[in-house]
């Protein structure tokens, strides 16, 4: 039985690459937009820094207050808390490092979105 010859690679490639029929929008975009749920905008960098700083300041204040508390909690927990030494200069380095990270992350996010 004779089998028909098959189209060569070039013919098939040309067929596959031929432009598909156009699909008109016909209100599709409007339907998608109507279905979009509200979305929170991302936090701007200045606000992010402020929040990070406030959070760290809060932690620092809490830690300082904690160190003055006469512990009524279980002894083991209080010992663990007392054993955790955290000097002010260390807190400062931590705040600076976290702020730098927040700024770098924000800059990188912008680059990524732009496809850089």
């Amino acid at each position: 039985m004779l089998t028909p010859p098959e189209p060569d690679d070039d013919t098939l490639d040309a067929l596959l690459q031929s432009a598909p029929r156009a699909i008109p929008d016909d209100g599709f975009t409007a339907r998608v937009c109507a279905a979009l749920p509200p979305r929170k905008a991302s936090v701007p960098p200045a606000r992010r820094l402020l929040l990070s700083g406030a959070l760290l300041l809060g932690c620092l204040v809490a830690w300082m207050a904690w160190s003055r508390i006469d512990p009524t909690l279980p002894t083991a927990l209080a010992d663990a808390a007392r054993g955790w030494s955290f000097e002010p200069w260390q807190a400062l380095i931590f705040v600076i490092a976290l702020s730098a990270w927040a700024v770098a992350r924000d800059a990188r996010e912008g680059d990524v979105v732009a496809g850089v």
Partner: protein
Amino acid sequence: MNDPADAELIASALQRGDERAYAGLVARHQEFLRHFLRRLTGNDHGTADDLAQEAFVRAWQKLETYRGDSAWRSWLCGIGYRLFLGRVRRREPLDGAEELSADREEAAPYSPPGLALDLEQAIALLSSGERAAITLCYQSGCSHGEAATALGIPLGTLKTHLLRAKEKLRRSLAPWNHGERLKVEG
């Protein structure tokens, strides 16, 4: 990587939650995605458009997770493809669907009127992965790497899909190499 206009629209949508910017993205890419999904669903326009709408909504919700290491439309196609696979899996096992495709391919009658129509039918008989690979690489202009990323498969698997798909298409379209057919078409 990304068209500058896309990058600008994505940035606006991401940073300000700007729906109008996102509408611009939808308008720019709706044809591409709907065409891709129509191919995947065997030209089921209703299902393809439902999936496309869902893909755009998901993309909007997950826009922060887009890292820009591939074109936005490839990322979007990946979402559409996973939604399609999810729908196929819910209705029938994917392997079953692929076996059915293979059976239909063997039994498919040759039916003109046109080469383009036959090509559509032949593509519809491919497995989901093969169809997706052929559509992305040949009809959507994606590079092999981009298509592999969009489909979430290794590059080698994508190339295997392409080879198999082209082999099947070549067999399905073989009758068009007969002079009589070509004369009828011409």
